[in-house]
């Protein structure tokens, strides 16, 4: 159970964040709305057939509400958003909210899987580097971190496609699930639902589709986690309580994992929160590369087609995710950090 002071602290964080969230989202909405209308590329010009006249252009502009001024368009759109109507996609002619919510679970599952991979890989590397500090193993960990940081995620993706898709074809190159499988799912959270339904055949198929894109997303983050955690562990290893544990006769593994890690993990946790938002941003390119049916892939199509309502919807959802993730990180930090907890 949460103590009284912690509850107050969490409530203060939530209220403060909610207020800034609303301002942030409004700011994002204004910026994205104006910017995508100012940059070159009119959706009506994109669909003009040969032979279209000025009257045809005017008719199409009116059909998509583009004949009004930008402030007028914004007010109409914002009025709809407040009521849960994000408009209709120009290219798919489907409600934007349905499209975005339909694809969001795929991106969230991919991002969370990538995060889990990053934490496992980064954590293992940091612990290994700390355990074998001063040896060649630590040097190897540092080199691996350097490589992980310097190669961008999409390049990892291409390497994995070549290695595990073509040369040694053990993972699927594209998509989220095999088209031939019949899906009993009622939600879009396929991985979660496949576990709940005990359909491990589907779960495995999903995993073999997700593995390469998730790993490509995870490696740069894993390198960052590894580097920071190793540094924190190194500093913690010299603290009195760790030295005391060692003098008590604890083994090195127990000292690192059981004593040093708990304190060393806090700065890494904050970093993970911040980096997770970058990781979600990275899904745009990675989903495209692996033809993964998530929000990022849809975002690129929306930009190519100048599908203004869909671009707006996707950006707002991404902004919402970023702010919610930051809120969760702040709350977790408050719960885990004793200095804040007892302040």
């Amino acid at each position, binding site marked *: 159970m949460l103590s009284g002071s912690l509850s107050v602290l969490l409530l203060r964080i939530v209220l403060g964040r909610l207020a800034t969230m609303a301002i942030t989202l409004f700011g994002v909405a204004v910026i994205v709305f104006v910017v995508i209308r100012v940059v070159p590329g009119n959706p009506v010009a*994109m669909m003009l057939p040969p032979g279209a006249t000025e009257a045809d252009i005017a008719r199409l502009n009116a059909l998509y509400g583009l004949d009004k001024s930008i402030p007028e368009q914004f007010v109409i759109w914002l009025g709809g958003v407040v009521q849960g109507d994000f408009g209709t*996609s120009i290219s798919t*002619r489907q409600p934007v909210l349905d499209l975005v919510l339909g694809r969001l679970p795929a991106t969230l599952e991919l991002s969370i899987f990538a995060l889990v991979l990053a934490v496992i890989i980064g954590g293992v590397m940091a612990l290994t580097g700390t355990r074998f500090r001063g040896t060649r193993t630590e040097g190897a960990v540092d080199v691996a971190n350097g490589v992980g940081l310097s190669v961008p995620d999409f390049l990892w993706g291409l390497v994995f496609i070549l290695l595990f898709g073509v040369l040694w074809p053990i993972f699927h190159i594209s998509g989220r699930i095999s088209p031939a499988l019949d899906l009993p799912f009622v939600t879009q959270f396929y991985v979660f639902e496949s576990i709940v339904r005990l359909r491990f055949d589907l779960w495995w198929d999903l995993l073999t589709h997700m593995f390469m894109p998730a790993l490509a997303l995870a490696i740069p983050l894993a390198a960052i986690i590894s580097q920071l955690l190793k540094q924190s562990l190194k500093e913690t290893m010299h603290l009195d309580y760790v030295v005391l544990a060692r003098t008590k006769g604890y083994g090195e593994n127990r000292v690192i994992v059981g004593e040093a890690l708990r304190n060393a993990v806090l700065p890494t946790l904050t970093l993970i929160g911040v980096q997770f938002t970058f990781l979600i941003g990275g899904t745009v390119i990675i989903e495209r590369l692996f033809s993964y049916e998530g929000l990022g892939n849809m975002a690129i199509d929306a930009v190519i087609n100048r599908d203004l309502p869909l671009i707006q919807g996707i950006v707002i959802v991404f902004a919402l995710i970023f702010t919610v993730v930051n809120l969760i990180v702040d709350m977790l930090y408050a719960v885990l950090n004793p200095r804040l907890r007892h302040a």
Partner: protein
Amino acid sequence: MNSITRRTVLKASSALAAAGMVGVPALAQEIEELVIAYNVNLPSWDPTVGPSAVNPTIQGLYQSVFDMFIHQNPDLSFAPGLITDWGWNEDRSQIFMDVREGVTWHNGDPFTAEDVAWSLERAGNPETGNPIQFVWGTIGNFSVDGNRVTADVKQFDPTIFKWMAFLTGYVMPKKYFEEVGAEGFEAAPIGTGPYMVDRFERNAFVRLKANENYWNGAPEFKTVTIKFVTDSASRVAEVESGNSHVTLEMPYEEYDRLKGRAGLAGSDRPISDIGMIFINDVDVMLDPNVRKAMAHAIDKPLIVERLLSGYGVPIDTLQTPEYVAFDPSITVEHNPDKARELLAASGYSPDNPVRFTIQTTRGFKPKDYEIIQAIVGLWRQVGIKAEIEVYEIAKHFELRAADQLAPAAFYNWGNAVGDPTTSTGFAMFGPSPHSVWDGEELVNKIAPLWGEADEDKRIQGWKDVDRFVAENALVIPLMQYVQPILHSDQVKVVQHASGALLPHLMTRA
């Protein structure tokens, strides 16, 4: 001490390999289910409304499920489809269309003449959002008598029947659409085409089942999965790994590398897509010597050979050899000396070059930027200094519609029906939003051809226009593209000159 041993690594590798074997099913020797790695996503299933309706790259998907009013053969010639006979009455005040009998929709409903009349009426209604409404609106007052549909001609358009095999010219199911509405149709589309939609995952794939009752014969592959793989490297990997059997739109070098590999084959033929340089009648482009010098300085065969690995056909007009108004006698020779002479007559030389901007996309079409770089290099040798400006394709559309393109602008133009109105006509007729050459002389030459009822006279008229355009260098046609298709050697691919990749034309090799 914990350490990573050789045994641990071997165990992990074996587990991973075993996992891989379970994870990816091996494709059977004989292909049961055809898998195609397609280069674009399918945004919407209604082939008559919205931006995707006029997106040429999506038409192959639509034509797998829906039929057009009039059928088009792979060589672009027309043939009876859902409409078996068509034409005008004597004074061209009415059109008639005889509708094929015995056809059924994918849900088993009978296909009727009412469907044709309703589809045409809907297409011509400005409120439905059909981008080609301006064509369909030229006919109206439909009446149905048995299997014959007649309509009044509001404005004579000699190409109206050609449009019935072109963008948005699809027959839609009246009864079903009225029952389920636009949203229901999007969720469960039906047509009369060779394949039925079995499952559709947006941004991922569409699974098609063969229509065994298809009027033109059931397709050979009973199940086809079309994966939307938008990245070309991933598409190539799909085919290379055996996960997909057919793919398109890849770098020519990759195509050459893979087509001879064991288990793979390649098909390539010219399609109705051309590369060209628009010339805007502004600044130095008003000087005919400059324009003509630009045209004479370009070595098109060299560009095709070196940059497109030979996958292109040099052209001198906006008509390709498959089009009805193609005239092989209209040529523009590569002659750098003549280019220098023309420029000298206007006071330009390599030391005092004429300067202008040329716009191009980069990566939108194969080697687009590199082609323009090469052309700029050739121009420099004769006394033309062009500065390259890279723009996005969306910007090109916007600038072209506003008549604000740079003096020269590279673009590609498709004309899947092969009629001169949809190439030279719309690209060069000043009042069209697609034309940036507004010269009055050309407008006057083209204007009478829009309504010309005598077909021979009409085609000859367009050839004359093409000659005028070539002689005055009002546009610089460069090359017709060749479409490479990489596929399993167990699949025989019949390519359609429109560029549409059609699974029902594929058979087992």
